[in-house]
Structure formats: C-alpha cells, structure tokens
C-alpha cells in the first residue's frame, strides 16, 4: 500500500511537470530612447506587472493606457504594480512614440518593438493585448480588446495577486 502511494506521488509529480509554466520570452527590443532592452528586465521585485501591447494607430489601446495612467499612482500605492506598455509601431512611427507618450503625460515605462519580435514571441495578434504577470514572472492572465471599465476588472486581479483586499 505504502509503495503504491509512493508510486502515485511520483507519477503525480511527473505529470505536474507538464503543467504550463508560462514566463515572458527573452528577446531584445528597444527602450523609448532607442537603447537595446532585454525583456528579461521586465521585473518588479516580486510584485505584479501589467504588460500591454499598443500602437499609435490603435484608439482603444490609447484609451486603455489613458485609463491605466489615470489610476496608476493609486494602483502603485495600493499594490506596487508596475506597468510596461510595448508599442508595436514600425519604423514609420517609432520616432513619434516618445513625443506622444510625453505629450500624454503617461507615467509608466514604454518600450519599442519595431519589428514585432516580442509580439510574435508572445503570440499577440490583435491589440490591445494585455498580460498580467505575477511576482514570480509567470503570466497568470491575459486579455485582448478594451472597453470602458475593463481596467477595473484587471485591477481586481492585480489586487488578488498582491494580496490586497
């Protein structure tokens, strides 16, 4: 009986290994100033991360990021969450990203993925596409599209991850 249990535990442990452990793939993209940036550096000291793909031509994306920005100070205070917004604009508009981000007064970090390497590695097709990443760097939720109020549902998940009521 004991032996059987032992075998069962072993089997279970092996099967558990199959469970998805999704982390952010490592590719080299650019910072908003054009310096190389490794996506391994998307970290937040064990606190949750929101990673959102957007572009200058995508209105819903900018509405989503505006909504994030409005709440960002409060969200950071409550949960320590950090937001990374990845622009998939290509060479025709990568240079316009920095002036727009400053013009809009966005407070979070913005990265440039001009040839969609990061987008492809994460299998992003439609934007906005937003990922929620836990303190261990694992992707725990993702969502495409944005409508007014979607940010509230996302924030509920952030709070749960951060252990905040």
């Amino acid at each position: 009986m004991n032996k059987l249990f032992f075998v069962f535990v072993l089997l279970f442990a092996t099967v558990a290994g199959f469970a998805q452990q999704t982390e952010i793939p490592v590719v080299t993209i650019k910072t908003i100033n054009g310096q190389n940036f490794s996506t391994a550096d998307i970290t937040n000291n064990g606190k949750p991360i929101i990673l959102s793909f957007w572009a200058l031509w995508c209105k819903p994306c900018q509405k989503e990021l505006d909504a994030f920005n409005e709440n960002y100070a409060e969200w950071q205070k409550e949960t320590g969450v950090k937001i990374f917004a990845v622009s998939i604009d290509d060479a025709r508009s990568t240079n316009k990203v920095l002036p727009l981000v400053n013009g809009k007064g966005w407070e979070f970090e913005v990265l440039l993925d001009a040839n969609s390497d990061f987008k492809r590695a994460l299998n992003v097709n439609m934007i906005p596409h937003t990922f929620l990443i836990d303190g261990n760097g694992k992707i725990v939720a993702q969502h495409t599209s944005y409508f007014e109020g979607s940010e509230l549902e996302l924030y509920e998940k952030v709070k749960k991850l951060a252990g905040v009521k």
Partner: protein
Amino acid sequence: MKRIFLAFILLFFVIGLSAQSLLDQSRVNGSFQIDGQFYMPDNELGITDSVIGGRKMGLNGFGNITYTLGNFSAGMRYEAYLTPIAGFDPAQEGNGFPYVYASYNTENLSVTAGNFYEQFGNGLVLRSYEEWTLGYDNSLNGLKATYRPVKGVNIKAVYGSQRYYWQKFERNSRGIVRGADAEVELNEVLPSMNTSDFRITLGGSAVSKFQRDADPSYFLPENVGAFAGRVNMSAGKFNFMSEYAYKINDPSSTNNFIYKEGQALLSSLSYSQRGLGIILQVKRVDNMSFKSDRGVTGNALDISFIPPLNRIHSYSLTGRYPYATQPNGEMGLQFQLNYKIPKGSTLGGKYGTGIALNFSQVNDIQRLAINDSTAIGQDGTLGYKSDFFKVSDHIFFRDFNVEVDKKFNSKWKAVVQYMNLLFDIATIQGKSGQEPVKANIALTDVTWRINSTRSLRFELQGLWTKQDKGNWAAGLIEYAIAPQWFFAVADQYNYGNKDVNHRNHYFTGSLGYNKDTTRIALTFGRQAEGVVCVGGVCRQVPASSGITLTLSTNF
C-alpha cells in the same frame, strides 16, 4: 521480485525528476485565428451572382505554435486561404506551413535556422515582417545569427530567400538575400560616457541581392548591393535620429529598367517633456524600390521598407484616403505636436485636455533629363538627374489635422477632430486621369460611461469633397459591457455621389464576445470599397455585402 520493483521505482524516480526539471523549463504557446466572409449578391452595389463567381465564401486562417526549452526554441505557423477573402491577392490561395524555425539563444549569441523576420535600422535596406490582416509576409528562409561580443555591440548576419506567397524557392526562381548589420551603443562601450546624459548609438548595414540575369535585351547587375548608416542621439529632452541608404543601379519593373542608383534619407528631431511632445521628420526617397525579384511589382518580395511619414488615422473617414510610399521618388516632411493642457487650469478642467496637431506633406522629387535626346525615365538609360535638395511642384499628399480630447467628468469624454486633405489619387491609387481629392473631414467620438462596466460610444463623421465619390457621412453607436460584450450599428452614407444611383448606404451591425484572449466577432452588412492599411502596406478592399466572422484565440 521486490528488488526489481524497487529498482524500477528508483529508475522511474530518476527519469521522473530529470524529465520534470526539463519540463519545468519548457513552455508551449500559440495562437489561432479564422476570418470568414460569406458573400451575398447586392444589386445596388453592383454585386451580382456572376461577380461573386461561385465563391460564396472566403476563409483566411492560421495556427501558430511556439515551443521553448531553456535556450532552445522552435515554432511553426500553418496558414490556409481557402479561398482568400475579398481584397487579398489571388496568389494567396493555398495552405501549408510557410513559417517553420528552430533557434538557439544565449545571452551573447543567437542562431536561427528556417524562416525568420529581421530589420536593420529603420528597415531602409532590409526588413522582413508579416502583417496578417493584409496578407503580407516577406519572411526570409535561411540562416540568421546575432552576436554580442561585448555589452553595447550588436552584430547580425542573415542570408536566405524570401517568401513569395506559396511559390517554392527553386534555382533562379527569384533572388537570394544576404546582409549584415552592426550597432554600437557608445555609452556602453566607452567607460567615460557610461554616465553621460548625452547618448549616442551608431549603426551600419550592408545587404546584397543575387539574381541571375536572364534578360534578352539588357545586361543587368546580378549582385545588387545596398548600404546604410545611421545615428541616434539623445541629450536631455532632445532626440535626433538619421539614416541614409544607398543602392547601386538596380533596373527593375518598378523603376522601368533605368540604371540609376538609389538613395534614401530619413531624419527626425524631437523635443519632449511631461505634457509636451514635438517632432519634425523629413524624408527623401529616390529610386529605392529593392525587391528580391526585379520582375515583380506590387506588395511582394520587398527587401527594404520605406516608411511613409504621415499620421495613421484610426477613424473610417479620416482613413479613407491613406498615403502609400512612392519608392520611385518622393520628398516629405511631417510635424506633430502633442500637448496636454494641465489639470486645474481654465481650459484643462479637472482632468486636463489633450491636443494633437499634425501636418504632413509629400511631393514628388525634381527630375531632369540626362541629355537632350533621352526622355525622363526612359528604360535602359540612367533615367534622370535629380538634385538631392530639390522638390517638384507635384504634391502627392498633404494632411493637416487637429485633434482635441477631453474628459468632462467620470461619465463623459469626447474626441473632436478636423482634417484638411489633398490626395493625388491618380498617383497613389493608380486611378489615372482622376483629379486630386481635396477634402475636409470632421468627426466627433463621444463616450458615455453608464456605470463601472457599461458604456455607450457615438461617432459622427463627415467628409466633404467635390472629387472622387463626393461627400460622405458616417455614424456609429456602440454599446459595451466590459470586459466581454459589445454590440454596434454603423452606417456610411455616400450622399454626395455625383451619380445619383450610387448614393448608397453601407449599414453594418456587429456583435462580439471576448473572454480572456478568445474573441468572436460577427458583422452583417455592407463594406464600402476602400483601402486598408497597417504599418506601411495597404490593401484594396472591394465593396462587398454579407457576413464576416472572426474567431481568434491565444494560449
């Protein structure tokens, strides 16, 4: 028996452990999408049974899977266009695995075999990319290596053949592309600059295309080289970028087989601080079409990418006349200002007010005959002479637009936009003989947040012009229940068409459901003839009537 059993368990345990540690590091993800259209005859739009030609249905689909195990990754994409939906190139018809690769990546070295995408600098001499919504894919099939000998230095080398719809590469069927690129971030390399506020990055690339000369009448260069150099500087709130590219003579169908060399210059200067962003960009392109088959025209087999500079519009009527780069020659500039009137000021109100101002103009380049007996652009000659700093009076495109966005309170917000447009439809869309379109466009986009998850959005747009199809009006109402449901009804009405019989309404009704990354959307109604552009590439979409279904997911 017992011993064997124990040994078996031990063995199992060891295998289990090692397998588990491997599996812990392994990751599988993928995505899947189907776009389907069911066409119906529509006499008012001139779509009859014979126009549809028995193709009552178009289906574009793909499935993508990526496997990663430690430093190793591999992936593949299946695509099917059976038959391609309206507006896609008929050469898309087919199915298979156009994208298969394996790669090995460490911190300093990465090698890929199979299909890949790559961009050098701004892409002026090499860019392979893929845009599903347009059916555009010029991936390279071959080998790629990137190497980082020290921090701040990046070296890339690629070689392969490009994807051309479903045509397999065979000897001499099309060209071979080879290229290398190096980039140095001086602040990383030079210790004295490590902490400097002045940042500078230099880069250079060389690309060569080989295609055999089988032309009966011309001696054509079989190896065409293209070179580019770039600089990126930032100091405090200023940013400057410039890239220059040069290509040796490359007679092709696109440039009417002239033996002139090609040049392109792209520069931008921006200043930005919190609440204010200003950018000025200039561009000159002269005979810069670079394809891996000199005989191919249109949106295929491009090795280089010349970015258009104008603003990409997001609304249906402001986006009705999109500009596309003229690789044979153009000179343009664009200016954009983003300003946020601060919160608390009279105009800013409680939430601040956003203003975006944008101007862009693109002219043809000046062209002079090479001598008295040769016509400009005549095939088999040097084509023409062109002063690098001279533009022609011929305007391809001009766009002036102002956009204001304002949040009034927690329930209401609005966007208002005005645009003045000049669009040389004969050059850009090949509708020769048609007058350039001069249009005024105005729109408003109002959102009412009913409660924390429900919202209504209204759009009202007008386009006024005496040319092409005349005046248009458009309206939309969208009801959304975040984050899952949306319903929308929209109409575009071509009320100003000179031909009274073509003053059509284009009604659509759509609904969609999103759950995490799964999206289902259904649209009924008519689609107006137009052009869809994403990034730098555009696709003509014919008028159609019917049902469109999109299903996509990601895992």
